[in-house]
């Protein structure tokens, strides 16, 4: 029984924390009070649910308890305006009874997402606030995930909340003319969370790895709240396609495994299926964007059959380059072209990129070149490029991979 209740509270915490905090922020206007009252509500649940049973609608139960806590606090504080504040909080409490559980429009969490990711806050602050208020991660956990001292992270959160209050950052979904830009800011925060977790997934660090799950979970919430936003669907699809392969991308020694050599039975078929559904839903909205195109490319890499359609991937990179031109995208396109049209065609594109000089310090440029030269049998030149890539590589796993390739080319 106790284990069941603890599991139910843990589940409610993941599912409902953001909703409870968001509602309390709206009715109290105070972010610290909102977090503390939400925390109290979950503590109360741990005490009461074993005795009274798990409520039919845990989220509504938790929100009501948190609201009562807010009223208690206002009474204790004996603030001059507490009477009117109390009336406002309890009047809002009446909403709970009228709203069916899953019909959350307008949802306070969407307001909270836009406030947390407001461009008037630094990007670091946006990320920290999102994890604290929407995902319910503790300050020490967030500090750990971003490898900064706890005091630094605590200070960052305090400053961000102070700026929200002092500068009048609204708790609102932006008006239509700002919506595209501001939605892009929310998506950028979620994608950063995902990448932080993904880049750590080769290690054993569970907190950092957990960031990928939080990013996907918040992304799903965003899709539910903004069903007509194709880029939100595209981002979730992209994250799912990457995450589906996470178990297969490193071997037992912690070495990177190339996509073509990964054990496909380790891929998460359910995640891939969900990604495809979301990408299809995005396509039906008829408004392509960078996340949708990246997801489409990732989808090509997780097809059931082994034959990857490199011509299709090259054309998707063309599309992506047109939306967001960058040298890295041009490099990826060159690799796709080398796979569909042959290494010579790829080398022509790489030479053009190298002469631009923008990727001078990027190890994947010589690595791609080395690979194309190897496929052409030009082993001495390939070895030289592998050596250059090795010198520029940032992580041990990458260096070990390049070393293996270098040995193959010279051996």
């Amino acid at each position: 029984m106790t284990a069941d209740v603890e599991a139910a509270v843990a589940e409610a915490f993941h599912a409902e924390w953001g909703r409870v905090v968001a509602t309390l922020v709206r009715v109290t206007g105070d972010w610290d009070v909102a977090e503390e009252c939400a925390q109290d509500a979950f503590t109360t649940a741990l005490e009461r649910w074993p005795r009274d049973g798990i409520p039919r609608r845990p989220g509504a139960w938790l929100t009501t308890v948190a609201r009562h806590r807010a009223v208690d606090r206002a009474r204790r504080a004996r603030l001059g305006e507490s009477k009117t504040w109390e009336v406002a909080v309890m009047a809002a409490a009446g909403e709970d009874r009228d709203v069916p559980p899953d019909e959350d429009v307008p949802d306070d969490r969407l307001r909270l997402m836009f406030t947390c990711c407001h461009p008037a806050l630094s990007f670091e602050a946006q990320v920290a606030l999102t994890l604290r208020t929407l995902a319910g991660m503790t300050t020490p956990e967030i500090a750990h995930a971003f490898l900064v001292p706890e005091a630094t992270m605590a200070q960052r959160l305090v400053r961000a909340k102070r700026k929200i209050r002092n500068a009048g950052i609204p708790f609102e979904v932006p008006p239509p003319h700002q919506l595209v830009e501001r939605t892009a800011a929310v998506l950028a925060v979620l994608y950063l969370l995902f990448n932080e977790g993904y880049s750590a997934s080769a290690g054993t660090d569970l907190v950092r790895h957990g960031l990928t799950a939080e990013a996907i979970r918040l992304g799903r919430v965003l899709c539910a709240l903004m069903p007509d936003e194709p880029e939100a669907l595209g981002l979730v699809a992209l994250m799912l396609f990457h995450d589906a392969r996470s178990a297969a991308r490193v071997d037992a020694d912690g070495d990177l495994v190339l996509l073509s050599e990964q054990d496909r039975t380790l891929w998460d078929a359910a995640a891939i299926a969900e990604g495809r559904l979301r990408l299809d839903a995005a396509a039906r909205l008829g408004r392509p964007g960078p996340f949708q195109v990246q997801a489409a490319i990732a989808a090509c890499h997780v097809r059931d059959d082994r034959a990857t359609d490199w011509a299709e991937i090259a054309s998707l990179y063309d599309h992506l380059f047109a939306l967001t031109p960058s040298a890295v995208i041009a490099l990826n396109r060159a690799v796709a072209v080398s796979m569909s049209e042959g290494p010579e065609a790829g080398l022509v594109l790489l030479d053009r990129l190298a002469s631009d000089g923008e990727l001078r310090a990027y190890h994947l440029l010589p690595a791609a070149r080395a690979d194309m030269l190897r496929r052409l049998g030009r082993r001495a030149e390939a070895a030289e490029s592998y050596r250059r890539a090795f010198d520029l590589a940032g992580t041990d796993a990458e260096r070990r991979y390049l070393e293996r390739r270098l040995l193959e080319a010279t051996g």
Partner: protein
Amino acid sequence: MRYVLMIALDESAGQRDGELAGEEISPEYAAFMKDAAERGVLLGGDRLRLTSDATTVRVRNGETITTDGPFAETKEQLAGYFLVDCKDLDEAIDVASRIPGAKDGSIEVRPIWEM
């Protein structure tokens, strides 16, 4: 909420372009102020003389020290300000983005510390 929208421009570039030389309110600023007033957000504002006309005053150990020029050498200089009353930061940002100086300079949006 009240905000000060501070307009920072590069004076040397402005003088070169003749932009800061005019004595009259430019049609662009006149249009901005008309719109902001009609919207009901504009409380006031002024254009400032160049920093070459500025004097900086400090009192140290009871002694008043007066120096020529602005309080800090910066790439852009304060050229003017508007005082506005907006619903929230989003509205203040929207108003700031319509100030003509936002196109070549910067607008700093500072909330008033209400006492």
